[in-house]
């Protein structure tokens, strides 16, 4: 197992090294240092950081009361559905979200006149507004789930004790709630910051021009028209340094069980009453509405005639290809992630925290590496060696696998650490090895493995970026189809295909949730 782990490390790192080698080797030049004193560079750097900070902060601040409402009010209707929707939002293909947001809040959107006429604001979706909205839409629901899980892990003995000691509300918040959320909130902040810092499609589509450009978009621009590799490399190193450094810091200092395990049995906790109850209930419904609206907006663009006119047959093959590719990438990604965790778990047990953190960083580095550099670099590297027109689809699968590994690792890790903490000594003492050990470990990690599998499957099914570079039309996927429809202004078809994709994602998440709970 440990050998498999090191092999997996080698493979994923190798891909990144090849990608950078592709760019560096091709230009035979290093990064463009002069860029560091360019005013434009300063402005995009500041903007990248600003929007990521705001997105992460707002996502968490807004998620907090909702997570509390879910925790304190078990009688809220449709809580399970809400939590499922939260997961769906997090993995929603960006293309689908952008279509939804524009039809709601664009110049001619459904809600825009309300903002402009009723509230009297000078509303423009494009720019910081749109970027923040989209980022919050994707990440806030995710934060809700994580914070809610964390609140659930407060043992009821803590609540009983806090009541016995006659804590005030403020003391309860500070001593019980905050203590349990603190380190999770920090890691969550770092994670969302990195996701938003590296954001590409949303910034490109909703940024509204050079005023709101992120480093990732600037890399794309440098590579796309000017083929200015030194500038792209400089931007890439800066991005890697900032995002990677922050991520390293967070994984060093934040101890957390996020995306995590439900350890506690919630038997008892205080129930709010009066205006607090009312406020919590209201905010719950408001967020329900806000999350559902962009999805409903998809339906608004489709008439009954469109449903009848669409050639459904044309959707079947792309759907099957999307599923097939997704299953392939998700399966490989899970195996890689599990293998890579093997040496990491070993170090965790031996309390070698510095080496462990470095290795964890390496395992999840694809999260912070500039995706544009990864795909373009690999493309340049491979083009002279492989017939990409024919074999491109293989690389779509490989790159997608590399990109989902960090998510799989982050989600599997806490459960495996928990297993080790509780049972490592016992399994060794009982001399359980190989297959026998696996038969003990499997039922313990099964629910998490299944839900992780569902998550990474849906994530990889949403890809169109990698496909646009390596894919070929013979293998068109559903998101690629949506992209093509949108590109030819066939909004009704794009909406229908989006609805199909979204339903498929929802179905998969639901299915995995179902299998996971039925055997728990």
């Amino acid at each position, binding site marked *: 197992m440990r050998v498999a782990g090191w092999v997996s490390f080698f493979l994923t790192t190798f891909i990144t090294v090849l990608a950078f080698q592709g760019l560096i080797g091709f230009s035979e030049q290093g990064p463009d240092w002069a860029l560091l004193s360019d005013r434009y560079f300063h402005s995009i750097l500041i903007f990248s950081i600003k929007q990521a900070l705001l997105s992460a902060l707002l996502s968490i601040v807004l998620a907090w009361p909702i997570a509390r409402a879910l925790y304190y009010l078990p009688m809220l209707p449709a809580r399970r559905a809400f939590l499922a929707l939260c997961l769906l939002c997090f993995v929603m293909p*960006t293309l689908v979200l952008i279509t939804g947001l524009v039809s709601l809040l664009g110049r001619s959107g459904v809600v825009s006149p309300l903002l402009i006429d009723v509230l009297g604001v000078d509303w423009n979706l494009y720019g910081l507004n749109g970027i923040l909205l989209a980022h919050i839409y994707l990440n806030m629901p995710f934060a809700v789930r994580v914070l809610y899980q964390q609140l659930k892990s407060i043992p009821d003995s803590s609540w009983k004790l806090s009541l016995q000691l006659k804590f005030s509300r403020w003391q309860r918040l500070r001593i019980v709630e905050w203590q349990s959320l603190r380190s999770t909130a920090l890691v969550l902040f770092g994670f969302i910051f990195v996701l938003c810092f590296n954001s590409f499609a949303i910034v490109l589509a909703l940024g509204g021009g050079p005023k709101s450009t992120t480093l990732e978009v600037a890399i794309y621009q440098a590579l796309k028209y000017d083929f200015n590799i030194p500038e792209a490399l400089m931007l890439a190193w800066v991005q890697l340094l900032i995002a990677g450094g922050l991520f390293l810091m967070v994984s060093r200092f934040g101890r957390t069980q996020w995306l995590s395990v439900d350890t506690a049995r919630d038997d008892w906790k205080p129930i709010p009453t009066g205006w607090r109850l009312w406020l919590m209930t209201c905010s719950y419904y408001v967020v329900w509405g806000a999350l559902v609206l962009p999805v409903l907006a998809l339906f608004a663009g489709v008439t009954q005639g469109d449903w009848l006119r669409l050639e459904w047959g044309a959707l079947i093959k792309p759907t099957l290809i999307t599923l097939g590719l997704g299953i392939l990438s998700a399966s490989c990604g899970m195996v890689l992630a599990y293998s890579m965790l093997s040496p990491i778990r070993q170090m965790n047990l031996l309390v070698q925290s510095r080496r462990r953190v470095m290795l964890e960083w390496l395992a999840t580095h694809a999260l912070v590496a500039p995706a544009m550099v990864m795909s373009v670099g690999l493309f340049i590297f491979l083009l002279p060696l492989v017939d990409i027109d024919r074999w491109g689809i293989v690389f779509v699968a490989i790159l997608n696998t590399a990109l989902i590994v960090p998510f799989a690792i982050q989600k599997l890790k806490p459960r495996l650490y928990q297993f080790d903490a509780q049972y490592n000594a016992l399994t060794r003492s009982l001399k359980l090895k190989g297959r026998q050990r696996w038969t003990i470990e499997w039922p313990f990690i099964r629910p998490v493995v299944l839900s992780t599998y569902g998550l990474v499957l849906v994530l990889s099914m949403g890809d169109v*970026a*990698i496909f646009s570079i390596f894919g070929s039309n013979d293998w068109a996927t559903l998101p690629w189809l949506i992209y*093509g429809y949108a590109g030819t202004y066939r909004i009704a078809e794009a909406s229908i295909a989006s609805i199909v994709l979204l339903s498929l994602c929802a179905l998969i998440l639901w299915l995995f949730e179902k299998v996971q709970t039925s055997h728990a």
Partner: protein
Amino acid sequence: MLVFLDILPLDPDLALMKKQLLAISSLLLSTSVLAADLTVYTYDSFVSEWGPGPKLEKAFETECQCDMEFIAVEDGVSILNRLRIEKANTKADVILGVDDALIEITRSEGLVQSHDVTLTGLKKELNWDDVDFIPFDYGFFAFIYNSQKIMRPPTSLKELIESDASVIYQDPRTSTPGQGLMLWVKRIYGEQSDAAWEKLSQHTVTVTKGWWEAYSMFLKGDADYVLSYNTSPAYHVVTENKSQYKAAEFSEGHVAQIEVAAITKASTRKPLAKTFLMFLISPEAQRIIATNNWMLPVIDGLTLPAVFAELITPKRIGFTPQEVADNRAFWVREWRSAATR
């Protein structure tokens, strides 16, 4: 991290019609198992089901009794980039669809060879004598408006920039119309360009990555004017029977975009490649291109749909490819600082 990259570069631009007609079923690469006698790199919308590619391929194959193959990449710039990466290993004999602004860059990297075609019958106004590149269609950049909404369009670029009408245009770094506007502003404003960009940015709704985002937002009513081509109205008339979309004619003159083809340096089938280039400027191919790619033909004397005669025919202004190649990087930097202010 997966959240980031969902929309990627599909296009810049090149005429509106191409994009609207682009069929998803034939978006990208057409891969055949056996290598063809002649391989042509082009951009994706050119070979879409309703683009000129399939018809051209059929016509040329009948003429030469050979097998030709189009390989499509995203757009004109990508053709150049792919050639830069592949260099001598390229499969391409011919590249088709880079524009005049890229000519000097392509040439200076030693990627093409002279075509040796005697150029007769090309429109005089094109004033064409390039030894490596052959033009196959062209159009003028122009601002399109809805004449049902706007009664009195501006008659000069200055008037538009100093008005407060909402405008959408494309990023000069990623889109050819965007670059066209950059040249246009530079030609007219010269040293005062950055002030003009600042002025324009005050009533710009958004600057998009590519042509379709801008044009589709305009059609949804998000702006009064959108940057496109003088040929755009023809598409609405011919395929949608809508005559309200018009191109505004500016008194200072318009910058043109000329799409060109050339033989790659690595090609070992130069005679056949040359035959293909000659075929491209024949009346048969020119008619196919004009009415499927929705751009103006490069030769005189074709019979085309009546609407082509109604298109605006502005005075042509601009820079030579050499001037563009020399100054582009500097102008882009000037634009990006002015537009971020």
